[in-house]
């Protein structure tokens, strides 16, 4: 009400909506340099470092995709492991059975994930709220049991990815690394571009109030479907990358709900609904895992307790806390209203401003 009134009172004053600030160009520059360094890493970094970063980037990609679904489309999935598993097995199918180069087979795995996501969405979207989450879990469990019951895939004991095993370490590790880095970058870029687009506005409107969004003409179902398919394809690609990385795929591991436990932890700790949150979350998770995972069950208990505490008492996560303290977002996604001139110092509210609609 007051802003509208001010604009009317000021008459010729111009206002504009801006997204990025000057600082963001510096951030973009730093980001570009960092990306180039990361791309070049296999040439100067050790093999073990490269391997560790594969873990890091696969988790980051998964977390970003999960965050896209949850933080923006309001879809709570605890079944992304279904797509990870499908991706791993599609990779095996294309590389070992059809003889396609494993690094190209990753693309087929992503397509496989997208294809599975379509009927899966048609099913689980019938469920409301939290029941949708269990629905996605059932789908993932169904996929696991189907794969585990097929003799050709080695059943429950799993199967070795021959094509990946025959590769030399010098080819395989950098290749896997670039794919992992690529998928993580793509996940972030897709989320960013999607949110800057028209669909992104729809997603954010939906997150904030789905009823209001729908009555403003947002097609909820289609928007959710796109998000679900993108996440399904991305998770399947990650599953394929992990399969090349580990040289072996096993239903219990590939379709494990532990994946989801990690994603939830990463996204919640970092901050749901932001691009930066999962990045921070993955770093925290990674450090925690390297230092405390030897404690086994205690480590998982700590992850669970932390997720509960953060959700209840600090739902914006670490990044939310940073934004609150500094007011700065690395990825410019918020639209800021800027009034060009301020000749009239205090905003005037005209009580009977004709034609002012709020």
């Amino acid at each position, binding site marked *: 009400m007051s802003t509208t009134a001010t604009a009317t009172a000021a008459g010729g004053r111009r206002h504009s909506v801006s997204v990025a600030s000057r600082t963001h160009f510096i951030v973009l520059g730093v980001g570009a340099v960092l990306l180039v360094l990361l791309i070049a890493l296999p040439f100067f970094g050790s093999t073990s470092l490269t391997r560790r970063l594969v873990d890091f980037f696969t988790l980051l990609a998964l977390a970003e995709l999960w965050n896209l679904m949850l933080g923006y489309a309001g879809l709570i999935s605890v079944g992304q492991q279904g797509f990870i598993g499908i991706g791993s097995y599609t990779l095996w199918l294309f590389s070992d059975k059809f003889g396609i180069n494993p690094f190209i087979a990753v693309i087929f795995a992503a397509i496989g994930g997208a294809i599975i996501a379509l009927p899966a969405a048609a099913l689980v979207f019938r469920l409301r709220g*939290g029941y949708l989450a269990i629905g996605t879990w059932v*789908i993932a469990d*169904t996929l696991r*049991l189907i794969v585990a019951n097929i003799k050709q895939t080695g059943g429950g004991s799993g199967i070795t990815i021959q094509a990946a095993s025959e590769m030399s370490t010098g080819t395989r590790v950098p290749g896997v690394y670039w794919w992992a880095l690529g998928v993580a970058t793509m996940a972030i870029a897709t989320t960013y571009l999607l949110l800057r687009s028209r669909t992104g506005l729809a997603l954010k409107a939906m997150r904030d109030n789905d009823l209001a969004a729908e009555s403003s003409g947002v097609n909820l179902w289609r928007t959710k479907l796109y998000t679900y398919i993108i996440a399904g394809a991305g998770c399947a690609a990650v599953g394929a990358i992990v399969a090349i990385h580990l040289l072996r795929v096993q239903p219990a591991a590939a379709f494990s709900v532990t994946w989801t436990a990690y994603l939830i932890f990463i996204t919640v700790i970092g901050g749901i609904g932001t691009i930066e949150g999962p990045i921070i979350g993955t770093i925290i998770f990674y450090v925690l895992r390297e230092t405390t995972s030897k404690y086994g069950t205690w480590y998982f208990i700590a992850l669970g307790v932390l997720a509960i505490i953060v*959700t*209840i008492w600090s739902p914006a996560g670490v990044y939310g806390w940073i934004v609150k303290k500094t007011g700065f977002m690395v990825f410019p996604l918020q639209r800021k209203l800027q009034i060009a001139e301020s000749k009239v110092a205090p905003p005037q509210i005209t009580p009977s401003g004709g034609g002012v609609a709020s």
Partner: protein
Amino acid sequence: MDWLNAGVQGILLGGLYALFAVGLSLVFGTMRLTNLAHGDLTILPAYIALIIVGFIPFNPFYAIPIVMVIMFIIGYALQRGVLNFVVQSGDVAGVIVTFGLSIVIANSLQQGFTANSQGLDAGTVENLSITLNDRLAIGWLPLIIFIMAVVAIGLLGLFMGRTKMGRAFRAVSDDQEAARLMGINTKHIWAVAMGVALLVVSIGGVMMGIRTTFHPLLGSDRLIFAFEAVIIGGMGSSWGTLLGGIVLGLAQTLGARAFGSAWQILVGHVVFILILALRPQGLMGKAVTA
């Protein structure tokens, strides 16, 4: 196993699934909370019974009332101490917190009791059966479990329909604000609802512990079966849930009979998916989804 025998086993197993399912839907119904820790909270009673019979060497059957009281207290405390904070924060917070809780419970049980399978020994009743003819024999234990499950579901229905507390549950479920204005303490009601839900499932939890072995990681299967029974039967109807549980139990045992035991759970999932695709409101649900 004969087809008829498999069918009877399926129906008896279904009663147990229904018992787990009514707990899940009671919580969802009263506070719109999807409790992903529900499965783990059906495993917990078996471990509590294990501790009790470790101290007092009597038949685990007698431990059931004690376990029920303990589970009610756990449920009440859990709701007031943790879950009440997320009831009004929407689905997402509820799912995340209960998922975290599920991890905490499963791993705590693993820490305290190892990942090995455990069992509760109820003595000879475990092996007694009624032989109807040379092809069909009904075990006493599965039959007792089924009867107890049906009685528990019936009593829960009476509790919801006839008692003051049950009315309060339904009032809070229908309109939280209006219920609060009428002087209902919603925080207390939610906690009682969680307590009652866990009290009911603990009967099944201990009985299942007597019938088969159990280990800390069974929770996710239990949650999924309970959920499938709710959706197959149709939400908001406890007899529907019983039917849903029986359909799921039948699908599993007949599936195992037809394709082998590795297919048991998968056939159950397939039936669930078919129902969700063809009749999303469930077998006995009303056409309008909640």
